[in-house]
């Protein structure tokens, strides 16, 4: 755990130093804390600091949301997008892009995205019912996310001009470029609330390992737990999508990585998963700055491209382990 926290700090500083103008950690710290080189100060404080804060907050949020979803569903393949919150946030954001609202109202897109994520929870519970079983919730979640996906495609289809369609497509790829402190102020409070909510429920995931009846008999309010976790995941991923677009696979991969380090206990996994998510997203965001390419690689694309083979590898390893465990 201290190693993870140290890594988080290290990559945070690296993230402030990486880019077209390279700064050493000493220069970064100087720029942060003492008025000196004005150019370095502006680069670090106004360009790179918001980006690094968002990477930590969003990566951490995605890692925590993934670990919480896996704990709730008792399944290592669960992912924060399962109940459709990020997709709904993306749909709401894309609608503001199509309507051009983001140009008239600068905060229109992020606010719409967060509202979209919350609307998905309302829709989910309306379809599945408040005390629905997990299976029903998963089916309803599938319907909500498919609907949001279809809506997003429709919004692109109806985009007023090719430029708007391209803007939508690029936005959907997920990026932390050119984010300001305003984005930080918009997203981070929601993310903090979501994190507090999920961490406060964390204890119950261990009891849930025994199934819902046993957990209920141990005093876990299973129905309320489900709703709170769905709400926390929606709020946190919605706020993430609001300022960074869609960034996939971190929620899935971070808990997997940490399971190998801290063991399978779903409660003990929460904090390490959050830290691992933060490290992964910062790493990806530093990488997109360093990879020489004719056009910018978006961080969401990178997490997917690295995440997918990695995920396959994990499944293969899991398969071997499971096969061995049964023998």
């Amino acid at each position, binding site marked *: 755990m201290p190693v993870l926290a140290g890594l988080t700090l290290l990559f945070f500083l690296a993230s402030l130093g990486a880019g077209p103008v390279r700064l050493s950690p000493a220069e970064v710290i100087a720029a942060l804390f003492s008025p000196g080189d004005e150019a370095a100060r502006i680069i670090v404080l106004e360009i790179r600091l918001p980006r690094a804060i968002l990477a930590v907050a969003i990566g951490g949020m995605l890692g925590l949301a993934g670990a919480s979803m896996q704990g709730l569903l008792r399944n290592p393949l669960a992912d924060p997008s399962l109940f459709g919150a990020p997709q709904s946030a993306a749909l709401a954001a894309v609608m503001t892009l199509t309507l051009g609202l983001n140009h008239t109202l600068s905060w229109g897109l992020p606010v719409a995205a967060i509202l979209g994520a919350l609307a998905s929870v309302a829709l989910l519970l309306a379809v599945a019912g408040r005390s629905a079983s997990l299976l029903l919730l998963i089916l309803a979640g599938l319907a909500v996310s498919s609907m949001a996906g279809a809506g997003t495609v429709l919004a692109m289809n109806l985009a007023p001009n090719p430029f708007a369609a391209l803007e939508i497509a690029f936005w959907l790829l997920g990026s932390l470029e050119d984010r300001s402190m305003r984005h930080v102020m918009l997203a981070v409070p929601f993310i903090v609330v979501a994190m507090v909510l999920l961490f406060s429920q964390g204890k119950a995931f261990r009891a849930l390992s025994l199934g819902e009846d046993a957990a209920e008999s141990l*005093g876990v309010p299973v129905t309320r737990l489900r709703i709170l976790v769905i709400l926390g995941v929606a709020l946190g991923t919605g706020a993430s999508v609001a300022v960074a677009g869609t960034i996939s696979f971190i929620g899935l991969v971070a808990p997997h990585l940490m399971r190998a380090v801290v063991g*399978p*206990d779903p409660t003990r996994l929460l904090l390490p998963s959050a830290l691992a998510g933060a490290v992964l997203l910062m790493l990806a965001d530093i990488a997109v700055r360093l990879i020489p390419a004719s056009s910018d690689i978006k961080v969401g694309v990178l997490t997917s491209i690295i995440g997918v083979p990695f995920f396959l590898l994990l499944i293969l390893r899991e398969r071997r382990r499971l096969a061995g465990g049964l023998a």
Partner: protein
Amino acid sequence: MTAPSRSMLNLHDVSVSLGGRSILQHVSLSLEKGRFVVLIGPNGAGKTTLLRAMAGLVAATGEVMVDGAPLTTLTRQKRAQKIAYLPQGHQVHWPLSARDVVALGRFPHGLADPENLSPEHAAIIAAAMERTGTTALAARNVQSLSGGERARVMLARVLAVDAPILLADEPTASLDPHHQLAVMHDLQTEARRGTLVIAVTHDIGLAARLADEVILIADGRLAAMGPPAAVFTPERLAEIYRIRAVHQEMAGETLLVPWETVP
């Protein structure tokens, strides 16, 4: 049957409907502490539903009283401390160590982190594993245990709750004879320590031999209740189970063996 004030668990006119279908009808019964009670009945009779109603896991009409207090007035935590419940199937969804699983029994008593145990929690967990003969399995991954070993680890988990009422749903299902006997024996021992133990089983033979009391459920109703000899009459076995059983007394114990089906 109104409650004697000393009864540990008292059901008054309890009915349960699920999805508009009546599963359990007008069950009233009263059970004392320290009894080993076996809940028995044909498939689909409502045994699991009755057990879940006793545990407060399913919405029921009528009244369930635990140690003199209505179940619905207890807080979740109080209820969890009073009633330990072992569901069917003995499933564990993560490859936790046996000891971590048993430690979950301390959850209602505020245990947050099984890696950081107070001496009191540690002693209760160790005792529960000792009594079920699972101490040697402590560090093993529960998912890699045999069915019998896992059943006994799960039994240790409910014993660790240290509740005055222990409900176990088919704790011996699909176990070999050794583990069936071991689990039933452990449950009987727990009852002798003062706990009210209620276990669902299909094994009429073990019920007749070991139970202090048998609750026979048929078609969602209480068909009979009392000492095994009074409940397992040839007429009831024929009517409710549609079997004829061989009945012998041996070394002061009852031997009841299902023998043949009757139409």
